[in-house]
């Protein structure tokens, strides 16, 4: 206990300063990461509330809980909040913000004040969206398709569009900070080929944020102007082209899927070697596949528009390119699997989430190929098959990775260990609840249940009841970590500097780290993931 007492008194980023001002005016990337953690958790539960409403309405075939209009608002705001206010900032703004400077041996991101500014922009956009929500909400679907959004909807499209326009700048500034930091702030000896794969993946994510987000910004701005000033750019009755809107929207919003999944892959690339005690298999290929996903990801957007009247030849090209993007994704899955092969695997909480990620992402990714196939897409377009597919990628992939990452780095973030048994239990509950929620949707979608309706034929009820039951289990799985992670802040065992015996510079500093991350700037003389040189982690630590 004596050492523990000393550890608590040591200066770290959490106890360096006290008071609300020291948090709201901080430029420390670790504190900003925690600000983001709080705000995105809030929006996660707001978005989750709308998911709950949707699942309750769909429990019965009749539209009995909500009116059709209210249901339209529920799924619109569920989608917009989850995509723009939770998933896109989730791993980059929390874990990326916290870890990237430490992983490359820097004291902070390149532009600490811009980093804080990005959080304030996020909060301003969030408040505007909450205002929109409180005054009646928006019902366009998360995609804002014109001319419905620009001409017919009499809900708060302008406020919602502006909020998402603004939150885009938060994402752009985060991406800008990451790219410049990775280029300019690496410690001596931290060459590109020694960068952790977490950093590579975030670098690829940042490029998408920088080059994609401005497009949705200008597109939504044009929709807002069209509503406010009666422009007519996307209105077919006035010579405008709604398909142009879809092109511009998906030019960002398909790469946005990779903004959500690449950071999750970043987390998995750290967890898998650590809990397999092996060097990652094919480092160069995993790193390059991140860049390839970002690059090819920009060229597949029109696979959302196969039934929107684009020409057969462009549909063929986009179908082919969509198949291409499966190649770097598969490289990652195969290489993680090869990393585990003959490793000494421990079933710790982060690893359970990683297993979940690999399985669910594989299903989500492969069903994406079904949808990229022109003939099949015509059959399942706008059905629950699509809903199940992208929830397997975004929830089964992105959120599993996020939770795995939060557990993996929780000792570093908080200085405390979480209760391992509860962690494993929650991971299993999330996995089971998720599959029960979304697997039936593949079937009911294939059978023809369309998305975005509040009523459905009675023969689909059994699948919807299963789905709603699964969603309840999933909710328990999400609330559990909330409870025991908060509990651990006070009652958790004090974390050692490197509880998992992981490689990586973030584990070479104290837990929690000091404000400037390292007492002295490290000099890197080793390759990434040299697990053969690391001792096995203390089993007692893991069992707690």
């Amino acid at each position, binding site marked *: 206990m004596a050492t523990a007492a000393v550890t608590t008194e040591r*200066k770290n980023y959490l106890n*360096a*300063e006290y008071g609300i001002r020291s948090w709201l005016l901080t*430029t420390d990337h670790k504190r900003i990461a925690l600000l983001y953690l709080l705000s995105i958790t809030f929006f996660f539960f707001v978005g989750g509330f709308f998911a709950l409403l949707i699942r309750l309405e769909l429990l019965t075939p009749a539209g009995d809980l909500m009116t059709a209009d209210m249901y339209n608002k529920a799924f619109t705001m569920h989608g917009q909040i989850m995509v723009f206010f939770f998933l896109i900032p989730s791993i980059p703004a929390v874990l990326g913000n916290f870890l990237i400077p430490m992983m490359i041996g*820097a*004291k*902070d*991101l*390149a*532009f*600490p004040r811009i980093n804080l500014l990005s959080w304030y922009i996020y909060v301003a956009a969030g408040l505007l969206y909450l205002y929109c929500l409180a005054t009646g909400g928006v019902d366009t679907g998360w995609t804002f398709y014109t001319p419905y959004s620009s001409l017919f909807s009499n809900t708060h499209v302008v406020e919602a569009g502006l909020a998402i326009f603004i939150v885009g700048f938060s994402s*752009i500034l985060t991406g*800008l*900070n990451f*790219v*410049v*930091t990775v*280029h*300019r*702030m690496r410690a001596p000896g931290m060459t590109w080929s020694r960068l952790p794969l977490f950093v590579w993946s975030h670098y690829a994510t940042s490029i998408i944020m*920088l*080059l*994609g*987000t*401005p*497009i949705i*910004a*200008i*597109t939504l*701005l*044009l929709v807002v*102007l069209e509503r406010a*000033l*009666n*422009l*007519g*750019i996307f209105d077919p009755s*006035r*010579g*405008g*082209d709604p398909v*142009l809107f879809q*092109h*511009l929207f998906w*030019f960002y919003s398909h790469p946005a899927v990779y903004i959500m999944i690449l950071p999750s892959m970043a987390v998995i690339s750290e967890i898998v070697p650590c809990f397999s005690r092996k060097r990652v298999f094919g480092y160069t290929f995993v790193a390059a596949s991140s860049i390839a996903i970002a690059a090819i990801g920009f060229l597949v957007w029109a696979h959302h528009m196969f039934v929107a009247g684009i020409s057969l030849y462009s549909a063929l090209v986009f179908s082919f390119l969509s198949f291409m993007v499966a190649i770097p994704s598969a490289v990652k899955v195969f290489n993680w699997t090869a990393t585990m092969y003959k490793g000494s695997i421990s079933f710790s909480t982060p690893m359970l989430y990683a297993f979940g990620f690999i399985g669910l992402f594989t299903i989500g990714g492969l069903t994406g190929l079904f949808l990229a196939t022109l003939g099949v897409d015509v059959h399942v377009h706008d059905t629950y098959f699509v809903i199940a597919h992208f929830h397997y990628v975004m929830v089964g992939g992105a959120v599993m990775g996020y939770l795995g990452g939060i557990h993996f780095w929780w000792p570093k973030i908080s200085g405390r260990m979480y209760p391992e048994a509860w962690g494993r239990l929650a991971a299993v509950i999330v996995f089971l609840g998720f599959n029960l929620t979304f697997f039936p949707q593949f079937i009911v979608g294939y059978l023809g249940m369309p998305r975005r309706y509040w009523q459905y034929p009675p023969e689909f009820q059994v699948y919807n009841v299963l789905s709603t039951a699964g969603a309840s289990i999933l909710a328990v799985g999400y609330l559990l970590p909330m409870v025991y992670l908060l509990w651990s802040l006070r009652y958790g065992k004090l974390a050692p500097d490197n509880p998992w015996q992981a490689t990586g510079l973030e584990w070479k500093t104290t837990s929690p780290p*000091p*404000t*400037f991350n390292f*007492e*002295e*700037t490290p000099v890197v003389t080793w390759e990434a993931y040299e697990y053969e040189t690391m001792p096995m982690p203390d089993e007692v630590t893991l069992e707690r």
Partner: protein
Amino acid sequence: MSDRAGTGESPLVLEHEDRPELRHHFADVVQQRNAASLGMWWFLGTEIMFFGGMFCGYLVYRRAYFPEFAAGSRSLSLVAGTVNTAVLICSSLTVALAVRASQLGKRKLLVSLLLATMFFGVCFLGIKGYEWHDEYEHHHAPTFYFNAQDLVHNNPNLHLDPQRTKIFFSLYFALTGVHALHMIVGIGIFSVITFMAWRGKFTPEYHTPIEIAGLYWHFVDIVWIYLFPLLYLIDRRPGA
């Protein structure tokens, strides 16, 4: 750079004591300057994409509705557009000279060149505002009162779809409006920079803010260099 190790001071002093312009997390000024400049280049990359969305819309509709775009373009004031192009090119020259003056450490010259840049910027906005006002008076602004019947007065055989003409003016106002917004932001940035220069904050060793603000200004100029022919010169060949 263990700059605070063992000094016993608060670990949250944010600047290097000997170099007030060097922020705490950089090892040296070279690293800081490279970071700032790379950051601005990437930001300009995002700006290209931002304008790119509108340029894409322009491309699609100009191809689809060429007669209306040509007629709309002919109605714009060629004189005002040309003068504004010249004004912006002058401002780019003063920015380039300002960067040079800051490298040589000529403070007075630097301040006057920065002031000249802002003057050209304000001139540009003034002329642009006059043009917008003129178009608004002619009901060419894409509002509920839009009316483009006057475009066919000189040539009664010309049949123009008013809705398509309105799309030209929508894009014209959106593109020049967003560009003007960038000019206003630029003038704001330059006011701060000018104030800093007047206070003597820049030295031949440290003038990064002038360089990156200059990059931004040049970018906004270049956008106009594309906007001018695309909007004003669609159908202005001699004899047309």
